């Protein structure tokens, strides 16, 4: 089973690169949706069956695969923005940095004192790499939607690590966390809407009236 999980994780990491390298927003949104769905499936593969698991899987897939992409597409259509025009750092450079950090993530993960049963799994490096990708997107992209995408990737990275201890997390907490994240994204979506109303643009580099 874990081999299949590893392959999925490789997919997740490839999606990271896709997001980092693409200027089109639609692609990025879809990529993150796919990433969400893939991650949603992972618990089912790794852990043995339980209703708890089922709930999480379904919740994840619905939220990350359907609801959030829908929200983001809605925002995108509303403000008529299709691509990230001027990132702080170019696409090639971000890809390069992404590659380096992913490699570093592997090196780093190999040094971590993992529990014996988790040795050799791709979960930890994938988690680190995805988290860093999230940060990278957040810091290099200007558009609000791109930043939400970055945040989603960051979340996904954290989720991957969470897979290591699904058994340890009580349902209520996990559900709560999931719900909170979802509401968070939802609120962000609303905010983006308001931003576009207020500025007729969702370029966050215009949101610099408040400083010092």
């Amino acid at each position, binding site marked *: 089973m874990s081999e299949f999980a590893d392959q999925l994780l490789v997919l997740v990491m490839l999606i990271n690169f896709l997001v980092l390298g693409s200027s089109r927003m639609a692609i990025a949104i879809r990529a993150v949706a796919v990433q969400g769905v893939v991650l949603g499936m992972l618990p089912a593969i790794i852990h043995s069956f339980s209703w708890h698991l089922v709930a999480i899987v379904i919740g994840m897939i619905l939220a990350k695969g359907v609801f959030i992409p829908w929200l983001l597409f809605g925002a995108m259509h509303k403000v008529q923005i299709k691509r990230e025009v001027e990132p*702080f750092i170019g696409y090639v450079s971000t890809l390069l940095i992404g590659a380096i950090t992913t490699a570093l993530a592997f090196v780093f993960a190999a040094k971590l004192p993992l529990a014996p049963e988790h040795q050799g799994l791709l979960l930890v490096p994938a988690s680190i790499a995805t988290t860093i990708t999230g*940060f990278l997107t*957040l*810091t*290099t*992209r*200007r558009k609000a939607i791109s*930043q939400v995408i970055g945040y989603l990737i960051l979340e996904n990275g954290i989720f991957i690590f969470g897979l290591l201890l699904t058994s340890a997390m009580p349902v209520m907490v996990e559900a709560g966390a999931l719900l909170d994240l979802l509401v968070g994204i939802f609120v962000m979506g609303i905010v983006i809407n308001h931003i576009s109303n207020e500025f007729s643009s969702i370029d*966050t*580099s215009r*949101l*610099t*009236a*408040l*400083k*010092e």
Partner: protein
Amino acid sequence: MITTAGKPADPAFLIITGLALNAFSGVPGLFLKRAAAVGQKLATLLAVAGALCGLAGCFSAIASGETESFLINWSLPFGPCEIAIDPLAALFLLSVFLISGCCAVYANGYWPAAKQPATSRALSFFIGILSASMALLIIARNGVFFLMAWEVMAVSAYFAFTVESGKVEVRKAGMLYLVCTHTGTMALFVMFVLLRNMTGSFLLPPTASLSPFVPGAALVFFAALFGFGMKAGIMPLHIWLPAAHANGPSHVSAMMSGVMLKMGIYGIIRIISLFTPVPAWWGAVVLGLGIFSGVTGIVSAIGQNDIKRLLAYSSIENIGIITMGIGAALIGQSIGNQTLLFLGMGGALLHVLNHSLFKSLLFLGSGAIIHATGTREINRMGGLARRMPRTAPLFLLGAMAICGLPPLNGFVSEFLLYFGFFSGVKESTAPALLGMGLAVTALALIGALALACFVKVYGVAFLGLPRSAEAEDGHESPWQMSAAMGLLALSCLAVGLLPRYAAVLVQPAVFTLFPSLVASGSNISTHVPLDVLGAIGAALIAAAAILAVVYHRRLKSAPQASAATWGCGYLQPSARIQYTSTSFAEMLVRLFRGTVRPRYELPKISGFMPASAGFSSRIPDTVLDAAILPVLRVTGIVFSFFRRLQNGEQNLYVLYIFITLVLLLVWIH
């Protein structure tokens, strides 16, 4: 909450009653919005009652020469709280109560509630709090309690002198004051904590119980010098003082200069007294600071044209003299010169009392001038002696006293200091000798400079012809103002003519500070012929009186005429050709221009028939303008560079989070 209740005639009971009356004095006024005048009268009544009560307590505390202490049961987590009244405290309380009583009376004429209802309410309230908090800090024996009273004092003084906050310069002065006092208080935080580290409790330890040689003791000393020196206005920590004194109502300036500065001195003395005989270099540091502030203070004072700024700088000078005395006493203690110890400390303490008398008198006098003319600019005054027949002689008395002229009180304290320094010169060896020699020279120089300074003030403000319409319209001030000043002037004269009794006031305080001296059996009077001094003062007055009678007889027996001042042939002398404050000081300012850095704004005169032009000169504060402000400016520039960190770019903000994370991870690694 006081565990040991005092009897009604007990000094502590009287003092605490006086303190409470003072604190409460402004409160009724707050509720008498409609009848501000009634509120002010009530405040005066309470403050005067408090002052009388407190003074009675002080005198009996000094007379008994003993320490009364009480434990207060408070709920704050800083150990037990003690208050104690010993002769040293009583001596400082004396000036608190006396000056606050005088100022309360004075306020009725100077800041009448009928004219300024809103501000007079605030003023009465804050002055009441100010004097009560000063009294409280003097009797506090717990570091935290002391700090609380200290800070209440600092803040209430701020509110008292910034009542006219509509004026820009008042606000600026207030700001500077507040920042300085806060910085000073922080040093005191450190000091009390370090002291706690040494003793294990926030209670002040008994006199002479700590060793000055343990690590940390020197730090306590420097923190005390900084924190208390900031309040006392020792150069170069005086930067807040001129502006704050100049811009407040005059009776607040009198309180601040006459009493509040002394709280700094009190703190220094009290803290040093906790140590067993301190190393000579502590004394040398204090002496050096004293000489520096004394000379620089008076040199800066001479150049001022704003009467209250001038008085403020002169306060710095007098604080310098007091500090010199303390330093000399410490040196005397460490080299075993008892005369120096006795007279240095005795002189310093007496000068504390004297300065609060004559400086308050002068500030109140300057208030009377401002009341009469509406200006602080000495150059716009003149001829006020004729218009203010009561104020002029009182101010003159104050001016003479501050110059240390016999037979007034300033001479007595300076005499003690001179005597102490001379005894140091006479007996000691190389390093101490050098210090004492410098001290004598500095005191002589200060005396001569102060004389020039106050001749200028009195001469230019009160004598000659009015230099402006405001001065022309000057009028005498109401009786309340003159009464307050009169009482102070009388006290100046009394101390000058009866120095023996002044020494009696100071003596127990010196014994409190240096308990080992009690065994020596000597006192100030055995070291110095104070009676002769008083007698000579009386003789001087008698001689002058005889000469005056003779002169008067001669005048009557010969014709008298009156004419215009001889203009040396100049036919139409106007009031404007008189010597002014600026021109009087010009030579001295030029002599000391390395220290005072005068700024001149010269008129540009060009062409034939030039238009009318003006010349103005100004003496900025050397430390503030040449050192502190530039540093602040540079800091501001550096800060504005760092402020770009928050430039509104969200991406950067996320990056900060990431960087913090990475840095912490690297650190742990």
